[in-house]
């Protein structure tokens, strides 16, 4: 109980729960004088795959839509957050970087999740060269012999009642959101650096108390860092990463404003060949449809997504409505199926529904 409250305290401030819980980055509304502000310079690789301790918050966020031998749909989440107390990276117990990780495995009838916390500088968590993002025994490790470290990865995590071990191969290029990876989050201009690798083919094993399940599917990695939080009036966020059967993909998010419940939206349309087109506020509309009760909160479980510019009008439905992350800052994150003008599957994250 105390641990929960403690962790919640963490989330609220260190990881900027208004920020993270609302799906986004930052610490309170003030960025803090010593931290760097996201710029518009071109991202460079592999450097930008690694941690940016000069920025307040950062994450390596991977979701996978998987399928068992019998066609059952599964979802896997692996997230490593970095939150800085100071824009430095000291060695030893003196903590100035805090790491937090979430892992989840969703089946149609059960959602399992786990959480880890660690201080940086002691080797318990971090992002190391050659590329390995890790906390405890959870790791996202590059297996790419040459080329970009993110081209090939292994991914492991375990909790009290689940474990997974996946191999990921990228079949397309990195995608930059917004303007060359400068992603605007509010009308006031709050922004982050944001890029993705949405082209992973995944194979691997899920371990559940009932036994092991071989799975295949697709995965999507988001990389994002910032020192700026959300605007003060933004209360939460709804975020989609969708893979259509045509091979096209869509990233779309909406930041909800307290008063009106309206969205500040942003989207990136990704062609099967990796050509990406960003759409600014208002291009995509996110409409909550059916609401349901999860973990004592009322959440929109079905969404209508419209992107007229691409003749897109789809509805999403959760694989398991109970994909609630009862972690130190709680949120909903799980696999969805897509129907309508485009069929497919994807992942949905909803935060700030307290």
């Amino acid at each position, binding site marked *: 109980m105390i641990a929960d409250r*403690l962790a*919640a305290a963490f989330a609220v401030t260190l990881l900027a729960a208004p920020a993270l819980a609302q799906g986004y980055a930052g610490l309170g509304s003030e960025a803090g004088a010593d931290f760097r502000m996201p710029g518009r310079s071109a991202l460079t690789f592999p450097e930008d795959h690694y941690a940016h301790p000069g920025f307040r918050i950062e994450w390596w966020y991977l979701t996978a839509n998987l399928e068992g031998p019998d066609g059952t749909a599964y979802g896997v989440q692996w997230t490593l957050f970095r939150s800085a107390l100071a824009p430095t990276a000291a060695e030893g117990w003196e903590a100035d970087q805090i790491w937090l990780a979430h892992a989840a495995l969703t089946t149609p009838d059960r959602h399992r999740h786990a959480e880890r916390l660690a201080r940086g500088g002691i080797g318990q968590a971090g992002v190391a060269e050659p590329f390995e993002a890790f906390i405890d025994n959870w790791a996202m490790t590059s297996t790419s012999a040459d080329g970009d470290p993110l081209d090939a990865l292994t991914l492991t995590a375990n909790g009290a009642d689940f474990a997974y071990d996946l191999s990921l191969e990228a079949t397309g290029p990195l995608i930059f959101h917004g303007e060359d990876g400068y992603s605007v989050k509010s009308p006031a201009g709050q922004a982050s650096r944001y890029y993705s690798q949405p082209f992973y083919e995944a194979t691997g094993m899920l371990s559940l108390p009932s036994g092991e399940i071989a799975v295949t599917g697709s995965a999507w990695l988001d990389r994002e860092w910032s020192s700026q939080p959300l605007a003060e009036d933004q209360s939460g966020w709804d975020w989609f990463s969708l893979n259509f059967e045509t091979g096209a993909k869509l990233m779309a998010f909406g930041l909800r404003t307290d008063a009106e419940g309206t969205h500040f939206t942003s989207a990136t349309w990704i062609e099967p060949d990796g050509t990406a087109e960003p759409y600014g506020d208002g291009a995509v509309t996110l409409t909550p449809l059916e609401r349901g009760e999860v973990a004592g909160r009322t959440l929109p479980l079905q969404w209508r997504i419209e992107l007229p510019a691409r003749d897109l009008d789809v509805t999403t439905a959760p694989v398991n409505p109970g994909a609630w992350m009862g972690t130190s800052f709680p949120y909903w994150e799980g696999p969805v199926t897509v129907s309508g003008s485009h069929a497919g599957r994807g992942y949905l994250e909803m935060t700030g529904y307290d």
Partner: protein
Amino acid sequence: MTRAAILALLSHWRRQPLQLAMLLIGLALATALWSGVQAINAEARSSYDRAAATLGQDTLDRLSRPGGATLEDFVTLRRAGWLVSPVIEGRIAEPARLQILGVDPLTAPPQAGLSALAGDGDILADFLGPGLLLVAPETAAELEGSDLPPRRIAPDLAPGIAVTDITTAQALLDRERLSYLTLAPEQPFGLPPLESVTDLSRSTPEDGTDLAELTDSFHLNLTAFGLLAFGVGLFIVQSAIGLAFEQRRQTFRTLRALGLPLRRLVLLLAAELAGFALIAGTLGLALGYAIAAALLPGVAGTLRGLYGAPVSGVLDFDPVWALAGLGITLAGTALAGAQALWTVARMPLLAPAQPRAWAMASARMLTMQGVAAGLLLALALGLTLTAESLIAAFASLAALLLGAALALPPLLIAALRAARPLARGPVGEWLLADARQQVPALSLALMALLLALAANVGVGTMVGSFRTTFTGWLDQRLAAELYVTAPDEATAARARAIAAEDARAVLPTLSTDLDVLGRPATLVGVPDAPTYREDFPLIDAAPDAWDRVADGSGILVNEQLYRGADLSLGNPLRLSEDWQVPVAGVYADYGNPAGEVRIGLGPMSERYPDLPLLRFSVRIDPEDAPALADRLRQEASLPDQAVVNQAEVKAISLRVFEQTFLVTGALNVLTLGVAGIAVLTSLLTLSSLRLPQLAPLWALGMRPGRLARLDVARTLLLALLTWVLSVPVGLTLAWVLLAKVNVAAFGWRLPMLLFPGDWLWLGLAALAAAGLACLWPALRLTRLPPSRLLRIFANDR
């Protein structure tokens, strides 16, 4: 009818407000003492639980190795998937005695104190960053103004403990290594075996908390006192109820004759008693809370001083405690009123309102009491001789007191019989016979008096013995005139140089914490000096003990460690992995909860070359001591409290000592007071019942004044006899406390000293109490109108 009956029944109390007051006071006092003691015990226990939870003494397994675990151990285990969390434990003595518990809040299992970080991320950032101490409110007050890291209040922490981040703890304790790693109870799926990951060894903390066990004796002691007081209080209640029922016999008969069903009468009387119990119980709870709040700081001081147990000095109000207190009052009232109600229930409808022989004991009853008393006393003897444990020691005390109480009436009767030849004239003989006659009726009150007196003699003897031994020991132990603790080595060296100019001897000492036989202990390095050889109080020692201590081939251990670990002279004691030294001597170390080991300064500094030499004591002519203290403060720029005069230390130690037994003393006085009230109520009851005995004497020409004086004399005689019997009982009690309970509870044995002067005072107090108690009934007797006495004869008895 019911309404009329209620009014009739209650009218009695309107006419006898004093009796009502007595009943309520008795009940309230009984409840107050009992519930007060309960509140103190509950508060102390909750402090222990908090301490245990904070210190991780609960159920979590630990990984450790001699010398401590490292950061690498921790990271290796975490990277292998094992959920472990680091802990650094230690104590600091300056600027205040404080137990430091360094944790990693990011991986720590649920733990007391850390909830104070919740809801405020800045605090957590401070905790991890610049450093923050989480402490109980009273600890925060103690640390006010110190230069320790900033404090934040965590109400769920036990006093005397500071929870802080690993880094802060490392800095405060000047220690790199981790004390141990805790292992989360629930571990993730599919981990490699622990042995393949680390060479740290896994241990499960023992069940239960040491503190709770250690302090059991103290709480048992308090509970026994509480129970004693409650029992004595019930004697009062029983007398008051008996009296009230007796006087309302006519009312009962009239009500029954008027058609009030027996069932309803009994129900009404029971309801009346329950009502009184509720009123008095509520009063008693308030009083008990006040008593507990007043005594708690003293109890907390005692527990801290004797056991090092951190107990909050602040009382919380617990509704469960209040309900339990009321429950006990109701149960006690039911017990005390049962006999009276039973009598009413069996009373024939139109029986003449004759006073029954109130608790008249037959010869057979007395024999049975004697036999039971003999058996109990034999049991007490057997337990005392064979038992080693605390529970057995307390059981033998209980058997002793109960046996003595039961033996009292037969012994009093025997004594009065034996005194018969001494009686001169018919009045003297009548006085003795009448006293004998009164014994059964007064027996409950006299038993209460005996218990209170015996407890007083016993506890007084123990405390007195302890005080005398303790002051003598202090004089020896604090042989040096000045005690200096410097903040750093350079200051210490400068201060030693200054002191050496004036002093006969400067005696530096080293000290460090250490684990002996799994318990925390202190290792002290002492110089080879005549001061120690001549004055240091050894209980037992090898002939060459000081030589061996000086060259490091022998150690001295304190009595607590010696008895606790069952050591004997010559036994080797393991001080660290590769260091074993035989025990050369044992010294008394009263008031120290922990073990202590002393060795020569030379051998110790060889073992601990980095330990700073900060403390020293100074031998100097006592009259020159204050001047040197001032010089040290000024010239070596030592803070005021860094130089302590022997006299101050003694005064502080004695104050702690007095504080320690304050509670016992207070309870003692309260118990005696309650016993006095019990005697008074019994006498009041008797005074109206005894008219049939007195009326013939009056008729024979004895004046009421003389009758009253004889009554007083008889009561004083009984009190005197009770006191005489209470002295041996009390001394036996003291012996068991000193020779058995103290050894089991504290680890030290004290010589028993006798304080006959105290007994005399106690005897006078008992006589005064009894005298006061019988004064009023006697006065009433002198003012009795002759018509009342005449009516005795008219009433066909």
